[in-house]
């Protein structure tokens, strides 16, 4: 089997499966799930590789969404430009916020992010009402212009773009895993003082990770903004903070496939179960408890051995053992 297939075979498998799901399941569900998977991958990187728990992820998601939304509602009409603006705003915001919040550690970091989320909500709902229209939100679906190649006015194309971007984000995470930088991230999680005493600038390591993760969250937000054609402060409500944490932990934080699995599972609960059961969160809660009792790597701990033996069946010739 060629080398590239060995190295990237798994990604073809995983995202091929996502593509197939698209045929079997309702389009709004798969779009939502793929975008949410990007958001979850970003958070999983923070919590799993750097050990930074944040209760304020919605603020980074919404910054991207508002960046795109405000651009599309007030300035331009090209959704790709909007996407770009959203990500750039996300990068600038996390550069600034990271330089402040990363001086905190542990619980303080988590809670400062929660507070940031509350402040952000207030800003977008009340303080900046002349720009954001407050609770009404910004509506610009009709304003978005058609684009030649992937026309983002059609949900199908939003799905294709989201899937391509999810693959790119996944590849980035895989690459980071194999770089010295990835090892340094894990080292920060394991023993930050030790890394400093090896001469590394740990603040820089954390800052870059923070910006990468939260710019990716902003990308997810920008995609949501384009897909829905409107933004409102509801995306930044504090009650939404746990959803990405739950999804990341469900799938297994810090693993490559975990966030994908977790995101699909969570959105499936939210979209599909909630049509039958009013208190669908109850099921999520029970599932989280059960999975956490197993291992911190979530559901991947259970699935990995199964997938691995399956993958070995496909990728290797069976070993012939002879008894002497």
């Amino acid at each position: 089997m060629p080398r590239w297939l060995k190295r990237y075979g798994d990604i073809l498998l995983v995202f091929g499966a996502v593509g197939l799901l698209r045929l079997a399941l309702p389009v709004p569900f798969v779009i939502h799930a793929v975008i949410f998977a990007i958001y979850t991958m970003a958070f999983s990187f923070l919590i799993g590789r750097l050990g930074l728990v944040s209760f304020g992820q919605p603020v980074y998601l919404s910054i991207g969404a508002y960046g795109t939304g405000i651009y599309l509602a007030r300035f331009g009409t090209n959704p790709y430009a909007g996407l770009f603006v959203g990500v750039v705003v996300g990068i600038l915001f996390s550069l600034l916020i990271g330089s402040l919040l990363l001086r905190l550690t542990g619980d303080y970091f988590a809670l400062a992010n929660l507070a940031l989320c509350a402040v952000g909500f207030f800003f977008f709902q009340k303080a900046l009402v002349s720009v954001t229209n407050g609770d009404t939100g910004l509506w610009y679906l009709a304003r978005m212009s058609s684009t030649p190649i992937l026309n983002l006015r059609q949900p199908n194309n939003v799905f294709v773009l989201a899937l391509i971007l999810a693959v790119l984000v996944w590849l980035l995470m895989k690459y980071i895993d194999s770089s010295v930088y990835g090892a340094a991230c894990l080292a920060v999680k394991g023993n930050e003082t030790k890394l400093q005493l090896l001469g590394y600038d740990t603040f820089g390591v954390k800052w870059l990770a923070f910006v990468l993760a939260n710019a990716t969250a902003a990308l997810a937000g920008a995609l949501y903004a384009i897909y829905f054609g409107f933004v409102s402060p509801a995306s930044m409500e504090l009650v939404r903070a746990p959803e990405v944490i739950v999804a990341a932990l469900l799938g297994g934080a810090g693993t490559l496939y975990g966030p994908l699995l977790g995101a699909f599972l969570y959105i499936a609960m939210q979209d599909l179960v909630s049509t039958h059961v009013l208190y669908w969160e109850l099921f999520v809660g029970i599932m989280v408890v059960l999975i956490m009792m197993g291992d911190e790597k979530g559901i991947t701990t259970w699935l990995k051995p199964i997938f691995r033996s399956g993958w070995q069946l496909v990728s290797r010739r069976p070993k012939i053992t002879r008894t002497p």
Partner: protein
Amino acid sequence: MSSEEALLGVENLTKRFGAVCPANGVNYKLRENQVAGIIGPNGAGKTTFFNLVTGLCIPDSGNVFFQGGDITRLSPQKRVQLGIRRTFQLASVFDNLCVVDNIRVAYYQKQRAGRPSLGGMFLTELVGVHSETIDELTEGMGFANVAHTEAGGLSLGNKRKLELAMAIIAEPKVLLLDEPFAGLSEMEISQIVEMLKNRCAGKMSILIIEHKITWLKDLVDRLSVLVNGELVADGTYQEALESPQARKSYWKLIEE
């Protein structure tokens, strides 16, 4: 000996934690390639001395010199970049990285002349970086059969060896070892002594804090006794152990 000759020197170093005074006007000079030991009862201020030298603690008064320059106010990271490395009393490695990656992180820093840049780290793929050198180091230091084990799962002896290996790889100018033999078996200790003799002696200055004094006999060419933040004896191994001051305050042998 003037301070120009000394590689590392401290002058009137004082640090207080409330009523405890783990460094009370300590003067100490370490020459190039000297192997020196520091002994003293628990709470004498040995580890604090290391913390002051490496920058984990800032002294209340006094100065730390390295290669003729004042480094009292430098960050721990800057001092490491100058070539001061230490190990810890509780073996400190990256428990969540495998042994090879631990070594790789240490080696990479040396490759970048002590200053790993973010961009460099990001663009350097772990798998391919100097794999041969890394493999050589891993085998040479005796980690061949645990190379891909997570360091958290190593025995204490192996952890200590790994920590030492990570410090040696960087080829520091001064190596500070905080109780490298604590909790180890005789065999493990002799392995560490071998490592120090083969890989470090003559290449760097070494300062060892240790309670297992007999092991220091063949290792050090100088021994100091620290009691209550003060150096009470300093000299060769024999001189230090036989000095009346040390016998009185460390061994509590009161000779009339």
